[in-house]
């Protein structure tokens, strides 16, 4: 396994200074080149978990390891794609994508080659010298993905990357991400609050529940890709997961009237 999250708990402090348990005893492992999603209602600690994996914050308890080594700081082997893109507004598309390569002291000609490659990969040819402000949301997120991929990470951490895109763009970006992932295999840890998105993309899905945030369940998605969201089996799986999650989050009462409620829900 490549990523090992072992008994991780994280305490945040509110504005008033009250401690708040954002994560409790989170455990999971991610294999190399696996597409691993984390779903859960908002506020359940998904971003916190990703921040720990990125090395922006340290866990209060427990350990996070990559390749057997404890994460203590951000690093190039773990690139991050943020929900709101987090592109540098003062840099053009090319300068944004080149940012990590320059910090990495990659030789100039190699930088140019890589930037060209990733601009092609995410389909941004012709927009090289635009500023982020001049791009649409989908294009910004593609720049952000290219910027993350350019430093050649072995792990891509994505925090609800498509949540603020319109549905058509989102589905297109999901397909593109899968293509990129299949062409240049990487471990992807993908945070989303959309179960449909997680089922479409992932090898495995960790389902988190809130207050305190913890991983309630890890499920394996065994359909071959590309996955058709209208495939009845996929539809049923999504419905089951949603129902199950609703039971976990809001108690079991609302589950009575839903179809397929008890067939697979015995856990």
């Amino acid at each position: 396994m490549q990523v090992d999250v072992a008994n991780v708990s994280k305490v945040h402090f509110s504005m008033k200074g009250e401690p708040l348990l954002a994560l409790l005893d989170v455990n999971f492992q991610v294999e190399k080149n696996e597409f691993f999603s984390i779903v859960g209602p908002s506020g359940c600690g998904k971003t916190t978990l990703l921040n720990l994996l990125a090395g922006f914050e340290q866990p209060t308890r427990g350990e996070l390891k990559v390749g057997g080594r404890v994460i203590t700081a951000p690093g190039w082997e773990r690139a991050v794609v943020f929900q709101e893109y987090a592109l540098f507004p003062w840099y053009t598309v090319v300068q944004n994508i080149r940012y990590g390569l320059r910090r990495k002291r990659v030789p100039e000609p190699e930088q140019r080659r890589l930037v060209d490659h990733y601009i092609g990969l995410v389909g941004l040819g012709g927009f090289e010298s635009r500023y982020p402000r001049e791009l649409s949301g989908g294009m910004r997120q593609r720049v952000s993905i290219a910027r993350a991929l350019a430093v050649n990470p072995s792990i891509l951490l994505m925090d609800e990357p498509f949540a603020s895109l319109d549905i058509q763009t989102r589905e297109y970006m999901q397909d593109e991400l899968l293509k990129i992932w299949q062409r240049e295999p990487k471990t992807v840890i993908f945070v989303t609050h959309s179960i449909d998105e997680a089922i479409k993309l992932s090898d495995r899905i960790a389902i988190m529940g809130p207050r305190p945030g913890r991983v309630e369940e890890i499920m394996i998605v065994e359909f071959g890709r590309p996955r058709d969201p209208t495939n009845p089996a996929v539809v049923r799986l999504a419905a089951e997961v949603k129902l199950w999650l609703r039971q976990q989050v809001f108690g079991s009462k609302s589950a009575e009237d839903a179809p397929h409620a008890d067939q697979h829900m015995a856990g």
Partner: protein
Amino acid sequence: MSGAGRSAIPPPSSGVRAEQAREKAGYAAVEAPVRATAERRVPVAPEAFARLAASMVPPPPPTWRRALARICRLWLLVAFVVIWELVSIFGQRVNPQLDVMMPPPTAVISAASDLMTRGVLFTHIFDSLYRVLLAVGAATALGVPLGLAMGWSSRFRFAVDPLLEFIRPIPPLAWIPLSILWFGIGDVQIVYIIFLAAFFPVVLNSLAGARDVDPYLVQAGLSLGARPRELFLTVVLPAALPHIFTGMRVGLGIGWMALVAGELVAAPSGLGYMINNARTLFRSDYILLGMVLIGVLGLVLDYLMRQAARLVMPWHKGQ
């Protein structure tokens, strides 16, 4: 639920069967009676769309029309000057003192040509301009690094803040007596007064700028491998630039105020000196000229600052 176990939800027994089901579903969907009613459009090349877009917008008006339109936007200013002129000229028939109390704009123009032929006008302008620019330049050179450092390090901010907030409320003019004792009468003393006035807006805006950095951009920089120095130069500084420019513009404005006050009290030259000197001679046209010149210089400098900001920050929407 027992933490992170394997799924309690078994995946459908056969992926293959699922694929077949999908194909069947897809086939059915094609046969479904959905009718598209849109007309077939002839495909158009992108360049054609560009030409179409150009043909849809009206041609730009000729240059002279645009110049005229720009002047027309200043109608309030023009009206103000014209009314002032009329009130002053016709008012003098009723009250002759108005000649001194409210000299007409035309008198200001003749005062300007008067002082120009005597060769003193540009000396006053240049002396004042030189002092303001020197002082605001010094305030920028010291204030921007100080403000950014305070924004970068809370520990530094906590150390410096009390001292700064203690000095800040003291009016620059209150420094005049002491500064004369320290520096004597002359450029150094006046520049010091203007510097004090411009320094705090520059520091506080730079500080606000450095603290206003989007935390996600800091995280992005860190995760892409920026070391502290690089993070400062590539993330914090550019993010703070708009605030820094604002601080410099405010500093310039306050600098002019401090300049005139400083030159009124003790100066061998400059626009403030010119105004004060004219007061003792009852030359209100010179006074008004001095005021107008300060206004115009302030306007021009602010315009230049904004142009500089646009040059330095092409990504930033104009101010």
